[in-house]
């Protein structure tokens, strides 16, 4: 299996805070990879570096064979990124948001309708509603549609299920599994241990370090707490 993402010795600090310390990681093509860790573990920083939004202090990262610093323009066509905070236009309707994001990637909603259809169908009845008026779960589904609309090769999801009810959380993970079957590489982070089991592999993160990369064990929560105490 080829590696979609190769990360080697990434470090990043904000002033005196070390957000990432010597992080190394590989994610295989077509994998559903989970970053598991508490708030402040460095997950968002890692996503932002991989999404070409931040430049690391040291270390390298390549995505789809492109360096995230030097080839950032090419990478921006290949990746889909859904930030941890709801980042759509609250004053635009569901449909307007989606067609706007489609247009900035030079595609149309009709062209790639099939890809987003399983998710979009659930929010389609509310397509004229302003995004700001949607429930938490529906907001995340819309954000996922927007991140997917241009058929990215790699999808970054920063805590897609935070602030979402249990049923919608399960639905979102079902969708991710389905997207994975279509060959999209997915990296998702979550603070919820139970969601780790939906991934092919997970990385346990804490205080800017990767503690371990493994297949999700059955008793993930206990396992993680044990590992945290062991540090």
């Amino acid at each position, binding site marked *: 299996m080829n590696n979609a993402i190769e990360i080697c010795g990434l470090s990043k600090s904000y002033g005196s805070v070390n957000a990432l310390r010597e992080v190394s990681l590989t994610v295989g093509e077509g994998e559903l990879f989970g970053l598991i860790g508490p708030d402040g573990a460095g997950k968002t920083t890692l996503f932002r570096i991989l999404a070409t939004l*931040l430049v690391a202090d040291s270390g390298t990262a390549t995505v789809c064979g492109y360096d995230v610093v030097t080839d950032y323009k090419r990478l921006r066509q290949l990746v889909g990124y859904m*930030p941890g905070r*709801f980042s759509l236009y609250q004053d635009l309707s569901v449909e307007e948001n989606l067609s706007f994001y489609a247009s900035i990637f030079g595609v149309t909603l009709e062209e790639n309708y099939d890809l987003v259809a399983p998710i979009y169908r659930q929010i389609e009845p509310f397509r004229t509603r302003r995004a700001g008026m949607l429930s938490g779960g529906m907001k995340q589904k819309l954000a996922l549609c927007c991140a997917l609309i241009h058929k990215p090769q790699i999808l970054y999801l920063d805590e897609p299920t935070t602030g979402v009810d249990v049923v919608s959380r399960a639905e979102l993970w079902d969708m991710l599994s389905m997207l994975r079957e279509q060959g999209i590489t997915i990296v998702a982070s979550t603070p919820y241990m139970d969601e780790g089991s939906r991934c092919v592999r997970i990385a346990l993160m804490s205080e800017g370090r990767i503690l371990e990369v493994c297949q999700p064990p059955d008793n993930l929560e206990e396992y993680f707490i044990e590992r945290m105490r062991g540090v």
Partner: protein
Amino acid sequence: MQIRMSSFVRKEMLHILRDKRTMLVVIVIPLMLILLFGFTVSTDVSNIDVVVSAPVRSSDVESSVRHLASSPYITFVGYIDMASIDAMLRSGKASAAVVYAADYAVTHDVQLVIDGADANTAATTNAYLQVIIAGGQPSPFEMHMLYNPQMKSSFNFIPGIMGMIFILICAMMTSISIVKEKENGTMEVLLVSPVRPIYIVISKMIPYLMLSFIDLIIILLLAHYAMEVPMTGGVGGIIVVSVVYLVLSLTLGLMVSNLVQSQIAALLISAMVMMMPVLFFSGMLFPIDNLPWALRWISYVVPARWYIDAMRKLMIMGVGLEGVLLELGVLLLETLVLFVASVMKFNDRLE
């Protein structure tokens, strides 16, 4: 890229149309300012209460006083003796006194006593009285007040207000709207897309350019038809110079949005650093020649100063575009410098 730009512009228009406060700022405030300054707030002096003191009421004096009293700017209060002038001015029953010399018929000597508590009003009163009295007697001076013979203050204010409104809409609203995307996190998503980030902000400028152009037209119509600003220099020149100033203000807004991270900061910088100079350095409130030399130098880089100068020449003095080439040149140069600087400074990452 064409399609992307147009969908950006469309999105921006939706933002503006759905935000009632923005619409208020963009349409109502300019109208309010023009009406306020044009009609209500005015430094024009009218109904000056004048008393006359004449030891000898010769026919020459009486004819001069008749001429004075017939002026629409003057309210003739009455004849008094020299000694009570001070009391009349102090009590506010008169704001100026005209004293005719005893040998007025021969010398035509007249003394003006004016309430100088408000320097601006006193200066205007002085000028009015001199012109009116000189008009009623043989005088070595023949006075012509060119371009704005009635000294209407609205003529002076309209270019100033235009200079301010366009900074308000173009610089402030644009910078706030760009910074809003940073605050709401939408910039993060936009950056991770193939759209060159600079297109994002340039397409943000277009709707505001359109809106301020509508404002420009409204202001020009109001100024011409309601306030009778002559604009004999031609509307074409006014529009050309104004559009350059609009683009310059938009670029200022882009610059501000590069420097700040929050909408409040954008608002403060636009108001303090950009609107205050319009008031102080543009000659709208205080003549530039009265500024201390250090501030006068600052005024040379304030775009509004050049714009307002050009507008005065075009609207009131009635010169054509060829008369404001220096002002236009300075504005174009500043636009170019600011644009290059802010595009180079534009960050297509998060930090």
